[in-house]
């Protein structure tokens, strides 16, 4: 029995969904509504006391780290291999994932949540917001949400995040100039990890990511959006992610692929 407790097919919460669809592994999807703060509620905290999504439970074994969980999924289930055989290529795959997890995904999360989520908190009762903060188990997560709820992210931190994302876009474009996929000539977990966070760039950063500015990254985004597994995962969302992905495919000209 394989159960995935997660939010939308987006960033960390999407990684297991993309992975399982690419492998063709059946699973039960429990939707955790982050907008309603369900990931900080008692039912989810009983599964993952850290209050972070995703949580993946396989025959009673609970995993809460999305990148190691992707390697677990690749090892524990049949289906196409999602890691290269060559040790150096595997190292490359893991370093791409680490760079995403430590630098790119948090930077984009800071930018996006300040743009999209922070305004929603502006008119709310500070006491209610404090009560919500109290329920967040991890101090580092609590600090990030506090900055969001009270519009306290320093502008220079957002600027540094924008610089890091622009730098990463250049790096990925450069890598994809030499290789078809991020860890060589086969599709791998590196592609899943990066795509889960960057799938919407042709819309959200259309001046920076397009056929002229980043031909190799755009070629790769088109190839990822055309994969049936990636599409099936993106179709599982309950709201803006699925709609957004359809608009991106339209923009990239892969709507009917």
């Amino acid at each position: 029995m394989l159960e995935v407790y997660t939010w939308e097919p987006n960033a960390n919460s999407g990684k297991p969904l993309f992975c399982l669809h690419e492998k063709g592994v059946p699973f039960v999807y429990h939707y955790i509504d982050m907008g309603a703060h369900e990931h900080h509620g008692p039912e989810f905290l009983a599964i993952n006391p850290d209050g972070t999504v995703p949580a993946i439970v396989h025959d009673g074994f609970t995993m809460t780290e999305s990148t190691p969980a992707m390697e677990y999924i690749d090892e524990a289930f049949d289906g196409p291999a999602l890691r290269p055989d060559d040790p150096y290529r595997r190292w490359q795959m893991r370093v791409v994932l680490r760079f995403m997890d430590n630098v790119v995904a948090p930077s984009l999360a800071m930018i996006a949540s300040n743009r999209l989520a922070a305004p929603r908190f502006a008119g709310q009762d500070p006491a209610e917001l404090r009560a919500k903060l109290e329920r967040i188990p991890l101090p580092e997560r609590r600090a990030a949400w506090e900055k969001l709820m009270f519009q306290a992210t320093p502008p220079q931190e957002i600027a540094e995040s924008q610089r890091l994302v622009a730098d990463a876009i250049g790096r990925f474009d450069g890598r994809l100039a030499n290789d078809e996929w991020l860890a060589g000539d086969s599709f791998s977990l590196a592609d899943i990890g990066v795509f889960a966070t960057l799938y919407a760039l042709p819309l959200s950063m259309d001046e920076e990511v397009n056929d002229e500015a980043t031909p190799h990254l755009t070629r790769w985004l088109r190839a990822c959006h055309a994969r049936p597994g990636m599409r099936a995962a993106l179709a599982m969302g309950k709201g803006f992610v699925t709609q957004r992905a359809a608009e991106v495919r339209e923009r990239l000209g892969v709507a009917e692929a």
Partner: protein
Amino acid sequence: MRLHYAPGSAHSAAVRIMLAEKGLEAELHKLDLVRYEQHSPDYLAISPHGLVPMLEDGGRRLFESFHILEYLDERDPDPPLAGQDPRQRYAVRKWGKYVETHIAPHLAIARWAALQGKVPESAVAGLARLLPPRRDLWLRAENGFDREQLAFSTEALLTAGRRLAADLAGNEWLCGGSFTLGDVAVYPHAAQFATLGLSLPQPVGDWLARVAARPSVRGIAGDLFPVAVMGPEPGRWG
């Protein structure tokens, strides 16, 4: 293979322990962190972030110590140290990530405070050669970490100690019944806690003693001293 490493760097110690566990030889290039040799133009030319360790293998340069450990395990699979089944391997990778995101950055801050770190005049020029995130981290250190940051880092390290104890409950080794890369990656960091006045639960102390007794660890014991240098950047957004 050629390993660029520094005594006092816990990440370097992990790679040296791994080489010994595997019976592998690498040519060693030793850098002196106290003299800031990791920020010299020569080293930055081959390691742009000025980080140790770095492994050269057949003309390729490999960074990120935990992924170097995994690379060495897959390059030379005997004896296998990445875990015996998918669950144990998940635990190994979980700790490989945890040590990098929740232990090493906070340990660097705690070390800097405890050892009263100070960038010497002779090393200031080197900071200007670093890429922005690393330069900013060093400048924060040079200006001194505030009390709030120190309290946050201390709490993070004590939490790490409790999590280590939880996974060691009933287990001889960190990731279950056999010695793995998880032990190799975490040990050199956890071994510094006592020197910095951070107490660890009893099961963690017992585990440290078991790891310390291995010949691979005894061989590099002289490298396991704390130095006031910055580690990985603390998490960017929680």
